[in-house]
């Protein structure tokens, strides 16, 4: 993805190098846009860029979802939400939970829904994957507690409970 971005020219003026890369959705298809700072700043309705706060401004302007998240990162793979929105690729399965709040909106726009209603994997290997996820969630809860973010710890604890409930329900068939 970065190779494509490196030498791209602004799609508005075609003269300056594009340094701002966004991905929007039109009819379920990802539509990339690449702008230089000047054309970006000339677009109506967007806040002006200042060299000191460029990232914050872009994050604030792209969509309300990004404003909420700021530079939140996945503790497992390190991807930030902005990085995800630029390339439209997640770094690891955990990202779906880490960014679940803005993801709900994005999924509704993409699929008209944010909940899975289809097939559930059955098979000897699948139990293992639940326990792996539980282990990861356990680590996340410890991290939240150690930085005294008890709200986050409570959210993760709820996730763990839900996963254990779903898992038990799945086992009952």
């Amino acid at each position, binding site marked *: 993805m970065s190779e494509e971005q490196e030498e791209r020219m602004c799609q508005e003026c075609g003269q300056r190098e594009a340094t701002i890369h966004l991905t929007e959705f039109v009819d379920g298809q990802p539509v990339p846009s690449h702008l230089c700072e000047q054309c970006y700043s000339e677009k109506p309705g967007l806040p002006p860029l200042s060299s000191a706060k460029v990232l914050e401004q872009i994050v604030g302007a792209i969509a309300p979802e990004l404003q909420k998240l700021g530079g939140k990162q996945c503790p497992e793979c*390190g991807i930030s939400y902005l990085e995800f929105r630029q390339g439209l690729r997640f770094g690891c399965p955990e990202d779906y939970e880490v960014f679940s709040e803005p993801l709900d909106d994005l999924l509704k726009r993409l699929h008209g829904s944010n909940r899975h209603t289809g097939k559930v994997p059955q*098979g000897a290997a699948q139990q293992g994957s639940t326990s792996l996820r539980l282990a*990861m969630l356990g680590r996340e809860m410890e991290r939240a507690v150690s930085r005294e973010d008890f709200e986050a710890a409570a959210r993760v604890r709820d996730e763990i409970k839900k996963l254990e409930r779903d898992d038990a329900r799945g086992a009952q068939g």
Partner: protein
Amino acid sequence: MLEGLKDKVGEWLRGGPDGDVVVSSRVRLARNIAAFPFLSKASRQQVARVEELVRNAVLSCNLCADLTYCRLDQLDPLLRQLLVERHLIGRDHATSDWVRAVAFCADERLCLMVNEEDHLRIQVLCGGLRFEDAWREVNEVDDVLAQVLPFAFSARFGYLTACPTNVGTGMRASAMLHLPALAMAREIEKVITMAHARQLTVRGLYGEGTHASGDLYQVSNHVSLGVTEQEVLQQVSGAVSEIVSLERAERQRLCDQHSGELKGRIDLALDLLVGATAVSSEEALHLLSQVRMGVEINLTPQVRLETLNKLLLLTLPAHLQTMEGRRLEAVQRNELRAVCIRERLG
């Protein structure tokens, strides 16, 4: 070993139900291995480890007789291109540079892509309109592999994929359609609008935008979350059936009102193909499409649909060059293409 592919015909090329309009149906499932990052954030070692895990699972599961497993990063670029032309791998899978592979059965119905955009993609390709068959087979393979590979899955979001456009069922159902009459009548826009209203995508198989070389179009779902697998199949299948009816109606109208002109155009296309000493790929697609319509409406009984399907592949660049056993310039390819066509249609 792979070169031998050029002498074989994937089972899907032999045609199937509604084969006069629907060339093929395909169902693909995207899966990732739990506890590994997706490809964009995986280290080279993790990517190699995923390939090893999936390879061991695929080879031990006895998925079909005569399975070929092939490391793409170790393969000649021309042979990779050959696999793209046969719809066994996508263009990106051919050109990315990490450890990745493809496995396919002798009849080319079942195909598994390892480390394409996701760790594993399972695909079944059938001739004609046969979504239920394709789904049954791909679902079975998914179940068999789920016995040995832990898939990244969440109760809330479903099968977890690198791109959220695939999350949930991880399913893409698509059909390849031949729509020369609708294209001639400039009705393709209407088809695209109808498809969009049902959350389906229509795009030309070869060519840009709405101009499809060879009048070949692909219809597929883009919603994979919040729907069951059966609902996706019904949506795509239903829309395809309607498009088939529209195309047949338009062909009938052409036959009724312009039969002389139509026959003239088709006969001319056949003459050009048989008599040419050089044919570009664009010309070949266009002329073969005319002849194909002739066969589909029974105006050209001397040519078989299977022959045209074979030619669809054989006239593509990597196939031509593999036949010759060496790389060719465009001019040489155009001449070889003409020979290839003449041999089979003349």
